[in-house]
């Protein structure tokens, strides 16, 4: 037997292995990327759901931006004040108070109070339904209730109650996934403490709203006139509450003839 037939493979394959190993070892030194030691520490404090509620592509990206001082320490809406506190300690700066937010569905036109244009039998998805003549609801701004937001929620905070999406604000982390999922742009992040909210998104005039739904904002401006703090304004037949001015006295909700403002 030729001894070369053993030596040649051992040497050549072994040599290849050593050469590649050497190149990789050299490259690991040469192409070393310096990482801020704070990044893994910050990353550890974060919830790790990678929901993107902070506006970055996941928790890692957020941690990096914080370490580079491009993002605020309280940028994580899911972790809230507790996480902001920890990150502020790591970064060695004061934590500025963050307001707890929650998602809110600006529609309460459920099956009994609002009318429909047609019976929808298609795919059970709001984006699909709204592609078909703006959905089956007469009101083109209202919740279709197919639950695209429910599927988008990572925390089980959303549910469909009587044909309208409902947010369980105790479970909601204000990550904003549902906000971007809703094809009607019905969901908004509002301060958790502000309970007086406008539960309608219709920019139709009063007459059209009346014909479509009995709990829609008709733009009568009673709320605007009765608010002592100038917190409510009506634009495009739709009331809007400035949460920084609102004292939650609830006068607007009492005066609203359609009960579109909730308390």
């Amino acid at each position, binding site marked *: 037997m030729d001894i070369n*037939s053993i030596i*040649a*493979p051992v040497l*050549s*394959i072994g040599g*290849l*292995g050593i050469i*590649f*190993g050497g*190149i*990789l070892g050299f*490259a*690991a030194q*040469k*192409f*070393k*990327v310096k990482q801020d030691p704070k990044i893994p520490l910050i990353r550890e404090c974060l919830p790790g759901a990678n929901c993107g509620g902070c506006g970055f*592509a996941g928790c890692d*990206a957020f941690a990096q931006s914080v370490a580079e001082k491009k993002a605020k320490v309280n940028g994580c809406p899911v972790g809230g004040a507790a996480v902001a506190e920890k990150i502020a300690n790591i970064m060695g700066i004061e934590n500025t108070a963050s307001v707890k937010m929650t998602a809110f569905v600006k529609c309460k036109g459920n099956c009994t109070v609002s009318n429909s244009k047609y019976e929808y039998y298609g*795919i*059970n*998805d709001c*984006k*699909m339904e709204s592609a078909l003549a703006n959905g089956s609801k007469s009101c083109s701004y209202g919740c279709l209730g197919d639950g695209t937001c429910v599927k988008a929620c990572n925390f089980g905070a959303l549910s469909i109650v009587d044909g309208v999406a409902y947010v369980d604000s105790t479970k909601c982390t204000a990550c904003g996934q549902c906000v971007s999922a809703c094809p009607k742009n019905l969901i908004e992040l509002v301060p958790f403490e502000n309970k007086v909210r406008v539960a309608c998104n219709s920019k139709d005039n009063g007459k059209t709203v009346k014909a479509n739904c009995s709990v829609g904002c008709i733009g009568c401006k009673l709320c605007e006139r009765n608010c002592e703090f100038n917190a409510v304004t009506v634009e495009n037949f739709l009331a809007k509450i400035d949460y920084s001015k609102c004292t939650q006295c609830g006068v607007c909700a009492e005066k609203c003839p359609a009960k579109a403002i909730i308390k």
Partner: protein
Amino acid sequence: MNLLVIFFAAIFVNNFVLSKFLGICPFLGVSKKVETAAGMSLAVTFVMAMASAATYLVYNFILVKFNIPYLYNIAFILIIASLVQFIEMFIKKSSPTLYQALGVYLPLITTNCAVLGVTVSNMQDNYNFIESIVNGVGAALGFGLAIILFAGIRERIERNNILSAVKGFPIALISAGLMSIAFLGFSGLL
């Protein structure tokens, strides 16, 4: 002309996923969203082209020369694995944006058998250096085409009301099989 034939044959007729059934793992694993599927196929294209070139050189100038071509499997795996590692380090340093785009997919490709498959088929078909690279890029584009189409189909399926018995993975396998049958239609093309 010959190069064009190799290129389109690799994409359609000999589609690695749907005709040769290589690379099924990433095909099923990374095809939930079109976006991630596109990222994966981009990374695969990159690695397949590089691997085709590197394995051609090693096979012809080392293995054939030392009369040990039967060791090609070991050598090719070694080359692909270290190549992917090297590329990952290089990209991390030189282009952080590209690194983030390819991100998790690069290490996954090390174990993608389609990459080994393309290098072995280069060798068996006796392609020269240019032909090997063209075949590599074509095979990768074929992989990308299959995985992106499949991701689009799966996104649609996800929205639908699927019979609960086949919901999730079973329906994905069924649709993959149907896609494979559809690609069978290309077999008479060249």
